C-alpha cells in the first residue's frame, strides 16, 4: 500500500495527519459558540492545507518546490485574516457585549 516511498515516512502519513487536522477544524468551526474559538478552528484548517502543500512539494515536486511558495502565501493570508477577524470580533463585542456565536444573528432572515 505504501510502496515507492523514499524515506521512512510515506507521503500518505502526512496526508492522513492533515486530513485529521482539517476535519477537527471543520467540526470546531461548526460547533464552537465562542467566536475566538471559531477563529482558532480556521487557523487549524489553514495549517492542514499547509501540511498538504508542503508534503506534496517535498515528495512529488522536490526540485521546483512550488508548494513551499504557495504555503508562504497561505501563511500571509492567514495572518491578515486573523488580524481582521479579531478586529471585527472586538468591535462586535463592543456593540453586543457578548461573543456567543448564537447571538450574532442580525443578518438572518
Amino acid at each position, binding site marked *: 500500500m505504501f510502496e*515507492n*516511498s523514499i*524515506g*521512512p515516512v510515506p*507521503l*500518505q502519513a*502526512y*496526508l*492522513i*495527519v492533515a*486530513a*485529521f*487536522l*482539517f*476535519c*477537527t477544524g471543520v467540526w470546531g468551526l*461548526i*460547533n464552537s*459558540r*465562542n467566536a*475566538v*474559538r471559531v*477563529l*482558532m478552528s480556521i*487557523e*487549524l484548517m489553514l*495549517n492542514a492545507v*499547509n501540511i498538504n502543500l*508542503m*508534503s506534496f*512539494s*517535498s*515528495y*512529488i*515536486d*522536490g*526540485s521546483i*518546490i*512550488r508548494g*513551499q*511558495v504557495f504555503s*508562504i502565501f497561505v*501563511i*500571509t*493570508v*492567514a*495572518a*491578515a485574516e*486573523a*488580524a*481582521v477577524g*479579531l478586529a471585527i*470580533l*472586538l*468591535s462586535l463585542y*463592543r456593540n453586543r*457585549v457578548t*461573543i*456567543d456565536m*448564537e447571538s450574532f444573528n442580525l443578518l438572518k432572515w
Partner: protein
Amino acid sequence: MNIAYSTELICFLILSVVIVSGSLAVVLLENIVYSAFLLGGVFMAVAGLYLLLNASFVAAAQVLVYVGAVNVLILFAIMLVNKKEKLNPIKGLRTRKLISGGVCGGLLVLLLRVSVTTKWNLPGPNSIGEEATERIGEHLFTDYLLPFELASILLLMAMIGAIVLARRDVPVPTDYTSDLKTNKVIDDKKIPLLSENSLK
C-alpha cells in the same frame, strides 16, 4: 533500518500525536485560554513537520508568523473579551453536535480513502534540501512576483482595516481611569456602546 530512518520515524510519530491530540484539545476544551496555548503547541508541531520535510525557511516563517503573531493576537483577543458569560442553552445542541460529527467523520473517511488509494506519482525528483530557501527567493522574485506584491498590499489593507475596525471612537471621560482603580469590574461601567455618530 539505520538510525537516521528510525529517528525520523520517531520524530514524525511524536509530532503527529502532538498535532492530533492538540487539535482535539483546542476544539474540545472548555477553558479557552488553555485552547489558545495548545494552539501554539500545535503550530510548533506543524513547524516540526516542515523541518522533517526539508523546508527550514517555511518552518521558521511558521514559528514567527503563527506562534509569534497569530497566537499572541488570539491571546490578546481572549484577554480583551474574556468575560465569563452564561450561555443560554440551545434546544437540540446534542443532536447538532452528533450530526456535524458524523459529517466531519464522513469527510475524514473520504479524505483518508482518497489519500491512501490514489496512485501518487512517486518517487518524484530528488528533494533539493538546503537550497530550498534560495529557490523560494528565486520563485518570489521571478514567476511569483505579482502574487508577492499583492500579498504586501493585502497585508497593508489588513493592517489599516484592523486599525479602523478596532478603533474606539467613543470619547473617554477624564475621570474614567481613576474610577477604574476603585471598582475593578469594567463590565459594570456604563460605557456607551454605540457612539452618536454611528447611530445617525
